[in-house]
């Protein structure tokens, strides 16, 4: 393990050393920027989540009675865009990644601290543009498919412009992380000693860096189509609407992995600590992250099996899609094996990690249904896809995110969370989530199309069940938010290393001092050396 770090340090922590508006919004400290991201994405998560509650309430009955169909369309567009671009893509990567990468690799900051602040400002600019866009919100769905997005009278330009700006925020964050991980590791922190969370964020950063520009130019072309009248996607001008979908998913499929890989990294950190066992198959997990990052570029058109693409393309993409399932399966089995013969502690963070394993498995396995060509034709654009996607995104990413919040909370804020309250919240979240989304698999198989403001009466009972689930989920979230905020004030003071973890971020004070470590640590072993040898 690392040496050279003092357990107790009398210097003020990064939270205390300076206060005031400027000390936050002009900070180049990666930890403060991480907190800024955390607060920002939480705000968008709450907004987008509330929108979802309204949508589910509207769907309680088949008719349209709370909001008009147009408003409903606006709501699901906003829900999707906010959740994807403002919450889940920057989510774990920008907030936890910023906070943890330098701490975990034993550096004092990221490679380009000013650029890091610049990325956050870009995020804010994107958010500000979004606020203007809300004056006349778009109704295109978060995928902005042409020709509808080129024709609708609503404000598509501002929303896409906001996302374009956010894209650059994401690109620069990824760039920063890659350079940091390559060039700033502490002495002795070899690639095969890197925590798996870092491997995950490294893979994510590659995707952020190289997939995002393609959606950037695509949205730019959409804006040009609406303003200058260029016609790459306009059939009346000789363009090809399906080309837009190809370009869009060239980013947006890798983006799914931008969302999920960091959560996989979180799980790889939480499981060994609360099982007190080394992670099983370190190299397999690390390399499968990188493999996913590479293969995920080859599979985008599996979103287009019925969009009018050629059969040849559909067959090739279906095949490649199944390839990307292999590294994912490998990870799940390795996590499971980590539990074997461990000493498992049901901390609230661990509960989220275990429910990740459970829910992500459901999400992953139902991915096989929609990857298989014949089945996808029936399931595409139905609630089955909605359920599958939410099982991966909430059951996977958000569970990982919540787990990370509960796990690293003492490190961020120097306060312990109320673990009992955490477990109660987890219970509601877990039950509520399943009640909301599991019925949607059946709805989808029975043919209920997605993005419907009104629906046929035959779907009513399952839709009602799903809506009731959303209320349970909301209760869980409210309890959790209460716990997170309350503990800031009344939480017990956290020790430096409450879980006896071996990784570097726990070897400094909680919360860490401004420069992270008094002296840069020298790493002599990997951070999963739990258990007794021999």
């Amino acid at each position: 393990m690392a040496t050279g770090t003092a357990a107790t340090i009398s210097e003020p922590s990064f939270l205390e050393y300076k206060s005031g508006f400027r000390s936050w919004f002009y900070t180049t400290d990666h930890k403060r920027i991480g907190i800024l991201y955390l607060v920002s994405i939480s705000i968008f998560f709450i907004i987008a989540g509330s929108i979802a509650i309204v949508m589910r309430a509207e769907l309680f009955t088949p008719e349209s009675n709370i909001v008009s169909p147009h408003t409903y369309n606006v709501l699901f567009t906003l829900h999707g865009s906010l959740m994807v671009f403002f919450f889940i893509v920057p989510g774990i990567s920008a907030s936890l990644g910023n906070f943890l990468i330098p701490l975990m690799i034993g550096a004092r900051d990221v490679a380009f601290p000013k650029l890091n602040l610049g990325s956050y400002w870009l995020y804010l600019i994107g958010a500000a543009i979004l606020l203007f866009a809300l004056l006349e919100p778009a109704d295109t769905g978060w995928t902005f498919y042409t020709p509808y997005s080129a024709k609708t009278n609503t404000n598509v330009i501002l929303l896409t412009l906001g996302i374009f700006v956010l894209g650059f925020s994401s690109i620069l964050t990824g760039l920063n992380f890659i350079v940091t991980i390559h060039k700033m590791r502490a002495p002795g922190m070899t690639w095969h000693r890197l925590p798996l969370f870092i491997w995950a964020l490294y893979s994510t950063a590659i995707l952020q860096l190289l997939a995002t520009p393609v959606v950037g130019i695509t949205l730019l072309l959409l804006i040009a189509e609406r303003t200058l009248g260029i016609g790459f996607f306009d059939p009346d001008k000789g363009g090809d609407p399906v080309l837009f979908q190809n370009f869009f998913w060239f980013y947006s499929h890798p983006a799914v992995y931008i969302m999920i890989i960091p959560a996989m990294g979180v799980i790889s950190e939480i499981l060994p600590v609360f099982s007190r066992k080394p992670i099983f198959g370190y190299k397999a997990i690390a390399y499968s992250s990188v493999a996913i990052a590479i293969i995920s570029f080859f599979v985008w058109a599996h979103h287009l099996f019925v969009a009018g693409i050629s059969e040849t393309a559909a067959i090739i993409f279906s095949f490649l899609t199944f390839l990307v399932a292999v590294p994912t399966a490998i990870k799940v089995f390795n996590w499971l094996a980590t539990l074997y013969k461990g000493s498992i502690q049901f901390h609230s963070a661990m509960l989220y990690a275990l429910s990740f394993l459970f829910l992500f498995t459901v999400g992953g396995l139902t991915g096989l249904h929609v990857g298989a060509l014949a089945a996808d034709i029936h399931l595409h654009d139905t609630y089955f896809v909605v359920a599958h996607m939410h099982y991966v995104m909430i059951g996977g990413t958000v569970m990982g995110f919540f787990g990370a919040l509960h796990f690293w909370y003492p490190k961020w804020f120097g306060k312990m969370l109320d673990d009992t309250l955490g477990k109660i919240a987890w219970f509601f979240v877990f039950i509520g989530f399943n009640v909301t989304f599991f019925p949607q698999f059946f709805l989808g198989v029975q043919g209920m199309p997605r993005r419907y403001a009104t629906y046929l009466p035959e779907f009513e009972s399952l839709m009602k069940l799903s809506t009731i689930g959303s209320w349970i989920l909301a209760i869980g979230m409210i309890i959790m938010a209460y716990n997170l905020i309350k503990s800031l004030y009344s939480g017990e003071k956290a020790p430096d290393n409450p879980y006896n973890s071996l990784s570097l971020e726990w070897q400094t004070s909680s919360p860490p001092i401004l420069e992270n470590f008094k002296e840069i640590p020298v790493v002599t072993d990997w951070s999963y050396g739990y258990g007794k040898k021999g």
Partner: protein
Amino acid sequence: MSENHDEHITPYKTYVIIWLILMALTVITVYVAREIDLGSINLFVAMIIASIKATIVALFFMHLKYEDSITWVFALYPLFLLSLLIGLTSIDVFNRIVP
């Protein structure tokens, strides 16, 4: 640069030679496209010449020749992705069934 930093400094003369080569290639590409006109393989020839030029610029002007392997990886991987974007999209666009 400090002592431990063994960096290659390209002499001025190299740049001038490279520039002359690039100029020559520009003339060739214009000449081939406008005067000889090879028809269907015009595109092919023009792209080969452009790629030679781009490689020279990257290797010498941008000093890629002296960079470490990880820089090479990140310089070439985007090109691979670009070919993937063009290639796989073409498989779609040019194989669609017309009923």
